[in-house]
């Protein structure tokens, strides 16, 4: 039986505060209320290693550690390797998508995105 959205703990990783707020608001509207934030991959990885999260939504281009590296670190970590990761990014080239998939993302959204797209991808991951 799938987890109810309100029980799913999500980490939103983006260096832009506006983008984090946009994603958080859309998630809230979709029923996901347990949301935490990180400003870059490094900060996110530190939190993931300390606390239990059920899902990660990450941007690609960020300072300190980018989203792609974060995905690689997650997949290389024995305790985190099965954590679902959704990449939300402005990188829309085919090779970017391929690179992200190769690194281990579970799904990929190109910015700007509609709430319906986010809903659809979330449902696909938690099906």
């Amino acid at each position, binding site marked *: 039986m799938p987890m109810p959205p309100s029980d799913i703990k999500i980490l939103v990783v983006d260096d832009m505060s*506006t*983008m984090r707020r946009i994603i958080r608001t859309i998630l809230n509207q979709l029923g996901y209320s347990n949301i935490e934030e990180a400003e870059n991959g490094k900060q996110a990885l530190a939190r993931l290693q300390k606390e239990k999260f059920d899902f990660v939504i990450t941007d690609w281009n960020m300072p300190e550690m980018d989203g792609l590296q974060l995905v690689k670190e997650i997949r290389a970590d024995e305790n985190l390797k099965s954590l679902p990761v959704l990449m939300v990014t*402005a990188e829309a080239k085919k090779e970017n998508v391929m690179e992200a998939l190769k690194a281990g993302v579970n799904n990929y959204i190109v*910015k700007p995105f509609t709430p319906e797209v986010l809903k659809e991808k979330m449902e696909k991951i938690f099906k």
Partner: protein
Amino acid sequence: MKDLEAIIKELIENVKSLESVIEGIKKPVSESSQLIPETTRNIEDVMAYLEKESHKIMSLLEEINKNSEEIKKDINFLLSLNPVNQIKSRLESVNSKNEENIKKILELYSHLSFHDLAGQQLKLVLELLENIKNALLNVIVSQVAREKDLKKEEISGLKGKVSEILSKDRVSQEDVDALLEEFGL
């Protein structure tokens, strides 16, 4: 004696041409190195302004959204009182419009990601400016090294000085002037 006179004349001409080369470089380098940090600051200001205004818009949208949720609750309450058909159909119509508004507010949120997309483009411009700044200072190094016939160690010292300046977030005019002065420019 004639040979010596010719050599001295040639030397003076060389010095003069070197001076004009140096003068020619000094002005554009100085102007550009002053303009680049200014432009960088302007772009950073634009980014900060965009971020601040986007948050203001989002706060207003949150208030509108909250009101819409309240309206929804009130309409549902009124509908639960079993009003006469005429009122019921009006209430249902208001309810449907209100739902539409809630959806549109959410759409507005996603359009606000323009700030992130614009910000990423502006970051590329900032990177480009950084590269131009580096290139400009490298022009100084290579020009000075060539014209002054600097030894290997001197070039390395000059490069060290330049990279020390470049490692800072911004190159101030004082840094550039000090560097120019150090190398007789």
